[in-house]
C-alpha cells in the first residue's frame, strides 16, 4: 500500500523497461516517475519509439516493468495498491475493476454485437451489466446501434463502443492509446468531449497521442523522449503552455 494522495489515481515510480534486440540492450524507459490525477485529462506525447506505449502498457498492468513500481488508487478514496509482484489473477482483477482501455484500432470482437462487446469486461454479471451497457451506449450516442455488429459501424462509432466497454465496470482510470488515430475530425471532437466528461466526473484519463489537437485538449501534457520525460515531473499544464504561446506570439 502507498500513502499517495487521494486525487492521484495512478502513479509510476522509477519505472524502467528494456528489451534485448539482436544482442543489444535497448532501454525503452529509464526510471520514469508519473502521477495521473483524477479529474484531469493527461496526455502522454512523444515521437515514435519514445516509450509512451510501453509506459501505457506498464501503467495498464499489461506488461511488468523491469524496475520501479506502479500504484493504482481506488475510486472514492479506496487505498492505492502496489502492483509489484502481484499474481496474474490479481492483476486481471485490477484491470477489470480499476482500469478501462481504449485502443487505437478499437479491438472490438467482430462476432459480438456492440452491446455484448460493452458487457464483455463484466462477464458473469448479466442483468446489471447489460442495463449499464445500454446506458453507456446511450451516453456515447449509440443506443440505436446496440444490436449491430462492429463491422456494421463506422470507425468513430466503433471507438465510442470501445469507450463504453472501457467504462462498463465504472473504473476510476481510463487509458487510451492513440484513441483518435483512425478517426475523422468530427468523431475526434466527439470522443475528446467524452473524455472531458469522464475527467469532469473525477476519473483520471490518460491519453497516449502524437496528435497536437488531442494533447491541446488535455489538462496536463507529459513529453517522453528516449525513455525519459523532458517535461517537469508534474507535466506541463496546457493552460500555462497556451498562455506562454500567446505571450511569445505577442512579443514577436
Amino acid at each position, binding site marked *: 500500500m502507498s500513502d499517495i494522495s487521494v486525487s492521484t489515481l495512478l502513479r509510476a515510480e522509477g519505472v524502467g523497461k528494456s528489451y534485448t534486440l539482436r544482442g543489444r540492450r535497448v532501454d525503452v524507459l529509464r526510471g520514469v516517475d508519473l502521477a495521473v490525477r483524477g479529474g484531469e485529462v493527461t496526455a502522454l506525447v512523444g515521437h515514435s519509439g519514445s516509450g509512451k506505449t510501453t509506459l501505457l*502498457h506498464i501503467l*495498464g498492468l*499489461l*506488461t511488468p516493468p523491469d524496475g520501479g513500481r506502479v500504484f493504482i488508487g481506488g475510486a472514492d478514496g479506496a487505498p492505492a495498491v502496489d502492483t509489484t509482484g502481484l499474481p*496474474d*489473477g490479481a492483476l*486481471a*482483477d485490477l*484491470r*477489470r*475493476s480499476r*482500469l478501462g*482501455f481504449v*485502443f*487505437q*484500432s478499437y*479491438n472490438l*470482437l*467482430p*462476432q*459480438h454485437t456492440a452491446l*455484448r462487446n460493452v*458487457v*464483455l*469486461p*463484466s*462477464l*458473469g454479471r*448479466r442483468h446489471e*451489466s*447489460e442495463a449499464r451497457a445500454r446506458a453507456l451506449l446511450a451516453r456515447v450516442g449509440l443506443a440505436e446501434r446496440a444490436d449491430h455488429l462492429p463491422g456494421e459501424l463506422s470507425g468513430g462509432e466503433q471507438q465510442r463502443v470501445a469507450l463504453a*466497454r*472501457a467504462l462498463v*465496470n465504472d473504473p476510476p482510470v481510463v487509458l487510451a*492509446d492513440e484513441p483518435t488515430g483512425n478517426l475523422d475530425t468530427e468523431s475526434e471532437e466527439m470522443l475528446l468531449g467524452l473524455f472531458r466528461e469522464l475527467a469532469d466526473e473525477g476519473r483520471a484519463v490518460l491519453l497516449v497521442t502524437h496528435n497536437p489537437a488531442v494533447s491541446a485538449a488535455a489538462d496536463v501534457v507529459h513529453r517522453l523522449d528516449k525513455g525519459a520525460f523532458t517535461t517537469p515531473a508534474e507535466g506541463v499544464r496546457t493552460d500555462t503552455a497556451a498562455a506562454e504561446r500567446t505571450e511569445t506570439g505577442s512579443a514577436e
Partner: protein
Amino acid sequence: MNVFSLALTNVRALRRRLFGLVALVSVAAAVCLGALGIADRAQGAADADVKESSANRSITVDRPDGRPGTPQLTQGTAARLAKLPHVESVQHRAQVSFGVLTEAGDTVLLYATTHRPALTPPVTKSVRKNLFPLRPGEIVAPAASQGVDLTSLVGQEIDIETTRYVRQGEGTGVSGHARLVGVYDPTWQLDNPDAAYAADATVITWAAERSGEPKGSYLSTIGYDQLTVVARSAADVPAVMKSVQDLGYPAITLQQQLDALPAVLEMIRVVGQVLLGVLGVLAFVGAVTVTGALSRQRAQEIGVLKAVGFRTRSVLTMLVTEMALVGALAALIGTVLGAALGGGAAALLRGNADLAPYVRGWVLLPSPGTLLLLLGLTVLVVAMGSLAPARRAASMSPTDAMKDW
C-alpha cells in the same frame, strides 16, 4: 453474459473454420453408433429370451468327450446329477439331424431336439395355443433357417429325410413325413440356430436309427447329447456349476450361451468397438489441431479479453467450452447420421432371413445408457484434446497476444 453464451456465439462465428472437425467427428460417431446400435439391438433380441424363470437358473451339461473315465449322459447320470445339492431338476436333450424338403426343391438341414420344459422356445406362429408337450410326428422349427423362411409351412405335412445306420461311417436316407405345428423366433440360440423341437420319443427313435444302436438300449449306452440342470435359485447356479464340473462334465450357464451372437453381428460389434477407439483418437487429435490453429488466429482476441480483465482461467474455460460445444454438436449430428446408417445397414441385414430377427425396427441406436455414455465421451475427449493448446493460448500475456494494438 456468461462464458457459455460467449463460447456459443464464438462457435457460431467460427462455424466455417470448425466445419472440418465437426464433420470428422460426426461421421466417425455415426459409423460407431450405427455399428454399436445394430450389435446392441441384436444382443437385446438374444438377451430378451432369458427371463426370470428357470431359464436363468439353467446349466447346460455336455457329453464328456475326451474324458474316458467319465460316464456318458445316460439316464443314470441324469439321476445322479438330480441328487446334487441345490438342484431342482435335470432335463435331458437328445439331438439328431434331419432334412426338410421344401416346395422350391431346397433341403434345409435341421436338428431334431428334445423339448425341455425349462427352456421353451418363443413360438411366433403355431397351429394351437399350447404346443408343448409335442405329439409324435410334430415339429416346431425356427421361423427362418439357412436363408429359407419356414413360416409359410406351419400347419402343413412336410417331407423329411432321416438317416439310418448301414455300417461305420455310412448311412442311408429314409424319407418320411412330419407336421410342422409351429415356428419360433430364431434368435433363440440355446440349442443352436437350426434346432427343430420334436417329441422325445421321435428324437430318440431317429437318433437310435442313425447310430445303429437298438432303441431300447440307446439311452443307457450312448445317452443324451446334453442335460439341462436347473438350480433352485439363480444364486445357486455357481455352486451347482462347480459340483457338475467336479464330476468331470463340461458345463456352461445359459447366460454364457446367450452371449454368443451370429458371426456377422459379432463382427459389427467389434467394428463398432474399434471405431469407438478410432473416434476417440480422431476427436482428440482434431481438437488439439483445431484449437491450436484457432488460438493462433485468435491471439488478438485473447489479448483483448485479458486486457479488459479476463483471468487466464476464464479464457481457458471459454476456449474449452467452445470445443465442448463443437463435440456436443458433432455427437448430436453423429447420432442422427448413426440412426440413419444403422437403419440402412439393418435394412440390408433384414434381406438375410437368418439375421432379420436380430435387427427389427427402423431406428437402431444403442441403449439410452450406452448412447449417453458415447455422447458424453465424445464431448469429453474433444474438450480434453483442446485443453493443452487452450491453456497455452490463455496463458499468453496480453501484450504478446495483441502486438498491433
